[in-house]
């Protein structure tokens, strides 16, 4: 019995050792390394959920929404979940197509990630993010998906905020659109970079893009406790999201609508018109009251992923590239609307303001004959009349004389180039700095520019000067010959500013290109205080409760090289254009006694195309509050397309019927809003008694 008791002792010692081992190890795991396991456990037990911030609204100058949010039921597909399935989710997509009424093949195309060789439809967002494939499904469809999750693994239907445009296609190019954020964009953002809310979007184009950071707000974070199946048990910690700021713009929705209608009508009336743009500026501040580009499109196309055909249509020539804002991206020869710059150049070159100038039917420049419009000789006249009647030859002569003064074909030293430099002072040839993306700078062709282009195109031009254009000759021998001669000219002396170039420049033809917005800001400066401003659409950023974040200023970026007297003189001349000048026909029946309109028509020739129709205007002439510029590409003469469209816009602003009888007007104060609307703490707009300078008749 002592043997067994001895062995029991050994067993007891062994037991004690093992107990001690367990105790030591427990101390190590729970006390020494405890923190490590706490961290690991917290990580498995909790999920960081991003609470998306409500995107700020975009309001007009009366507080009416231009872009707002609306709740929609969005169906999204988790590609990772589908990829784990045996059939790579083909079955799920087939069932989904049946429920949503889409072709499953089309749905599959939409969820593949975009890449260098994969074009739309594709998913431009992060590959880890659920792809929304249908926005705005019905409640019934959503329930079909949610109640049969076994048939739809990886598919969710949940409420999401989507953008809503009450004005439909109005101002879409300026407002911009949203698209799912790309990985690069997300990486650039500050803050919670690695986190996806699954519906992160970024503003593309327009105000949505320029003010993206302000509109976006800050997403919140929620740390939720989950069980092993990912079911949420409760919230451990929450940082609420901060909604985006509301952007108040200077756009007036009613004036915008009137402008859109005027452009659409002008397009319809002109047989060749392929695009139009309209800009309404607050003349004193250069704030944009309306900015429109035709053709336009319904922005609903962006919601929930655009189809390939839809995207192509937005950028195709056939549909007139409705995605592109012609008001800021369209570069066109300005025609006679440019003459206010040429008159200014003449004054700065020493031509007398009150001098007499002969306006012959034609003027010979460098062996080429440059004609007046329809070759009419108008006799001796003042600069005032030269503008009203739009004489060309006076400007040809002045431009030629200045070209000779600069040294002609062989300039000595640094040429003054007064025509080009004055145009630059009006803001042409450089971007206005408007708060919209993708603006074009236009073009002011001076000697330096000529050299640059020549250097870049010399080889091709010289080759073409020899071989000609046989491929064009098949269609039109005349055009091929013209192009060959042009190539020869350009090859030989394309590096020099020829006298013909100078002459064309003076009447806004040839290589001069401006954007409608540039022209509008130039006219605003001319008819008000002579200060050139950088136009703005955004006016003020406020929090959803109405408190001010910051006001957006339209800064002065230059001063016209004109005295107040000279400005008044030119303005006076332009004030007669609509009543007695080139635009008189377009304004027959307009109650000029109530609101006098001033302006300048422009008819720019484009080789092989119909003329570009321009009208740059301001009203009322004694104290201009509005500058309205309309351009109709291939619209014909300025008085044919653009001027009637401008008339329609004024009729809408001031409230006249086409016959001149009173009608409801877009702007009660007959002037642009003087102050941004006041947003009350509950988000509604306070009714504001207008303090804007009321225009008296």
């Amino acid at each position, binding site marked *: *019995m*002592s*043997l*067994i*008791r*001895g*062995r*029991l*002792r050994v*067993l*007891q010692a062994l*037991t*004690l050792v*093992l*107990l001690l*081992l*367990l*105790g030591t*190890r*427990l*101390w190590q*795991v*729970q*006390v020494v*390394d*405890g923190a*490590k*396991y*706490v961290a*690991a*456990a*917290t990580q*498995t*037990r909790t999920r960081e959920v991003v609470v998306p911030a409500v995107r700020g609204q975009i309001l007009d100058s009366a507080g009416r929404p231009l872009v707002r949010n609306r709740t929609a039921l969005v169906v999204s597909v988790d590609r990772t979940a589908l990829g784990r399935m045996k059939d790579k989710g083909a079955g799920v997509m087939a069932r989904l197509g049946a429920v949503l009424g889409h072709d499953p093949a089309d749905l599959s195309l939409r969820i593949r990630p975009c890449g260098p060789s994969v074009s739309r439809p594709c998913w431009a967002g992060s590959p880890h993010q659920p792809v929304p494939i249908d926005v705005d499904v019905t409640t019934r469809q959503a329930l079909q998906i949610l109640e049969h999750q076994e048939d739809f693994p990886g598919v969710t239907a949940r409420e999401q905020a989507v953008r809503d445009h009450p004005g439909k296609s109005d101002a879409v190019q300026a407002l911009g659109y949203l698209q799912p954020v790309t990985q690069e964009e997300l990486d650039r953002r500050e803050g919670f970079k690695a986190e996806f809310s699954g519906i992160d979007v970024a503003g593309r184009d327009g105000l949505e893009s320029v003010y993206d950071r302000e509109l976006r707000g800050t997403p919140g974070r929620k740390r939720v*406790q*989950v*069980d*092993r199946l990912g079911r949420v*048990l409760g919230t451990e910690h929450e940082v609420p999201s901060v909604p985006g700021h509301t952007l108040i713009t200077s756009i007036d929705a009613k004036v915008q609508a009137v402008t859109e209608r005027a452009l659409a009508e002008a397009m319809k009336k002109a047989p060749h018109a392929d695009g139009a743009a309209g800009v309404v500026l607050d003349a004193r501040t250069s704030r944009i009251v309306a900015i429109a580009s035709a053709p336009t499109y319904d922005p609903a196309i962006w919601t929930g992923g655009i189809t390939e055909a839809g995207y192509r249509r937005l950028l195709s020539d056939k549909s007139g590239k409705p995605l592109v804002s012609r008001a800021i991206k369209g570069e066109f020869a300005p025609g006679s609307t440019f003459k206010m710059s040429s008159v200014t150049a003449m004054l700065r070159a020493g031509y007398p303001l009150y001098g007499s100038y002969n306006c012959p039917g034609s003027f010979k420049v460098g062996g080429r004959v440059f004609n007046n419009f329809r070759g009419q000789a108008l006799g001796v006249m003042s600069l005032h009349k030269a503008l009203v009647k739009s004489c060309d030859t006076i400007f040809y002569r002045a431009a030629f004389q200045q070209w000779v003064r600069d040294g002609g074909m062989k300039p000595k030293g640094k040429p003054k180039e007064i025509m080009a430099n004055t145009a630059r002072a009006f803001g042409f040839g450089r971007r206005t700095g408007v708060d919209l993306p993708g603006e074009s700078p236009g073009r002011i062709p001076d000697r330096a520019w000529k050299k640059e282009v020549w250097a870049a195109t010399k080889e091709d031009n010289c080759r073409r000067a020899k071989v000609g254009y046989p491929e064009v000759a098949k269609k039109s021998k005349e055009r091929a010959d013209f192009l060959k001669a042009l190539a020869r000219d350009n090859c030989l002396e394309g590096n020099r500013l020829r006298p013909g170039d100078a002459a064309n420049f003076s009447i806004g033809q040839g290589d001069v290109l401006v954007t409608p917005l540039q022209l509008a800001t130039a006219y605003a400066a001319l008819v008000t205080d002579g200060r050139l401003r950088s136009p703005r659409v955004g006016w003020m950023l406020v929090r959803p409760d109405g408190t001010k974040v910051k006001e957006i200023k339209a800064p002065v970026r230059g001063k016209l090289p004109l005295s107040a007297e000279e400005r008044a003189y030119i303005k006076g001349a332009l004030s007669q254009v609509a009543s007695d000048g080139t635009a008189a026909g377009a304004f027959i029946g307009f109650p000029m006694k109530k609101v006098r309109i001033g302006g300048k028509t422009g008819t720019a020739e484009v080789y092989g195309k119909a003329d570009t129709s321009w009208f740059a205007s301001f009203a009322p002439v004694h104290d201009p509050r509005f500058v309205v510029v309309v351009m109709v590409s291939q619209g014909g003469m300025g008085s044919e397309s653009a001027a009637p469209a401008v008339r329609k816009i004024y009729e809408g602003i001031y409230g006249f019927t086409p016959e001149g009888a009173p009608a409801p007007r877009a702007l009660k104060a007959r002037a642009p809003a003087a102050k941004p609307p006041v947003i009350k703490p509950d988000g509604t707009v306070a009714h504001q008694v207008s303090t804007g300078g009321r225009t008296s008749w």
Partner: protein
Amino acid sequence: MVSRVTAARGRFLTRRAVASSAVHRVDGLLLVAVAALLLIGTLLVWSSSRTWAPGATGLVKKHLLNVGIGVALAVAAATVDHRVLRAYTPLVYGGALLGLILVITPVGSEVNGAHSWIMLGGGFALQPSEFAKLGLALMLAMLLAQPAEGDDRPRGLAVMMALAVAALTMGLVMAQPDFGTTMVLAVITAGVLILGGLRKRWIILLALAVAAGGAAVWFMDVLKPYQVARFTAFIDPATDPRGVGYNSTQSLNAVGSGGLFGKGLFGGGQTMGRFVPEQHTDFVFTVAGEEFGFLGSVTVVVLLGVVLLRGLRIARQCEDRFGMLVAGAIVCWLGFQTLINVGMTIGIMPITGLPLPFVSYGGTATFANMIAVGLLQAIHMRERHPV
């Protein structure tokens, strides 16, 4: 050593003279430790199962029923004179064997990859391998309780028979297959053989045979792939943290995040989230680790230690070889399960499906453990009876 045993005996004699009631002869410390473990077990089972449905008490009611039956069985076992039991041991063992045979026939049901259960209906089931532990302990003790004349050591024939009985039992359990229980049976066998007086050279020989057998099992692919995987994961849990290593990682996270004081009953996030699989049964210790912290889990280990040490004390104080061996076998059984079960939750033992004695949820295991404790008490109460 002898003098201490004598002293203890003397002390007992005095006490027995004062109180003659059997209740007073019960090992109080063992009783208290088991009661505390049952109570803690009930709380842990409650905590781990209460989130299965909102507002539910989980498995607490069924667990309490099991404990109640267990207590009744323990009391019954305590009243049996172990010498009477010795006579009936072949019957008990036969019954256990019958259960093991039944379970591998279509009568048995498969749960978690092992054909280990006999479904009784009404949500009740029996796991005959638990009774096999008890049956084998008694049977081996009986076989080795009769040493050769004037010797402490068992006869060769008895050893052979013991080995045959052990092999038969383990073979049947392995057929389910239930690797964990087989290990327990092996440990019980080794324990009884060694305590029973096997010569050292035989012990070494047997150990070599076991090692060779183990190697054969490993290399001949007798183990199921998941069993192999468990060992691999034990050596390096990072091999497959989502798969086999998951259990190990999650249980370490739960225990480790308890810290010194724990998160309080029902306060464990890992437990609430049900991240640890089989948390009410094999991994019940992780609930103690997370919610009661180091102090609580060490208390559980200490309580189990008290049970084991009292069991050893009872064995030493017993005058009868059969009683000694039975008590020793029970200590080996419960001790091994404690070591493996607690060890696997803290990453020092491979993942094996063995319940924590008196704590884990599970009817048959509770019954078997309680009968074992009842037998310890029975041996204790009758240790002074002259042979």
